[in-house]
């Protein structure tokens, strides 16, 4: 029962974190569409894209997602667990985690390059997706290490 609660707690936090990042991305996409269509039809977009709905604010919010995720990844790979219950220090397993992350990320890197080069998807979209994937992998591997299955 307690384990279920802990698992639910982890999932809720992950969803909240991802939710905050994706809200900025959605805001950016909506405003991007407004600015693009508005400029095409010679509309004054300053009234909409200013103040609270400023494009810069959304951009600031999501521009650092990928670099932050990579930073988290580096710190995760260097980490160690000192388990009070088992009385052991686990360090070597993070080397395995590093290889696992690299293996999982490789196809996503290629996919994101294709999205960017072939379909012309904006860099902030691909950066956010890559950041979410890296964080998702960290959460998954942490869960694997913690639960041990």
């Amino acid at each position, binding site marked *: 029962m307690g384990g279920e609660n802990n698992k639910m707690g982890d999932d809720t936090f992950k969803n909240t974190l*991802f939710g905050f990042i994706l809200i900025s991305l959605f805001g950016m996409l909506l405003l991007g569409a407004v600015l693009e269509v508005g400029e095409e039809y010679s509309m004054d977009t300053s009234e909409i894209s200013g103040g609270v*709905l400023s494009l810069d604010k959304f951009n600031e919010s999501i521009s650092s997602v990928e670099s932050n995720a990579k930073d988290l990844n580096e710190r995760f790979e260097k980490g160690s667990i000192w388990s009070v219950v088992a009385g052991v220090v686990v360090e070597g397993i993070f080397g395995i985690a590093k290889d696992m992350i690299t293996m999982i990320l490789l196809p996503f890197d290629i996919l994101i390059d294709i999205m960017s080069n072939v379909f012309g998807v904006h860099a902030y979209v691909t950066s956010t997706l890559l950041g979410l994937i890296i964080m998702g992998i960290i959460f998954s591997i942490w869960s694997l290490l913690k639960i041990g299955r």
Partner: protein
Amino acid sequence: MVYLSPASINASLGFGEVLTYVNTITNSWISNMFLLGIYVIILMGFYKAKDDFSGAMAVAGYGTFVISLFFWVGGFISGWSFGIVIGLAILGTAILMMDHN
């Protein structure tokens, strides 16, 4: 304020002329009410169909956003009204993302 006479428009050019006239003399009130109606209809329709209020807010927000984008480009609603619609769409997204049920 002197309102434009209905006789001044050429209704034979299409119903769009009538709509533009109505929108002009009501100072965009009719378009704002139309968007509000669309929002509430989608919100309530989705909520009754799926019993999911956060999903309904997001869908209603996006649906109204698309229609209001056309309205804004056509000059039927002000940027201020359009900003509110964008805010509603982003709010709907936020509620959807934060809903863990």
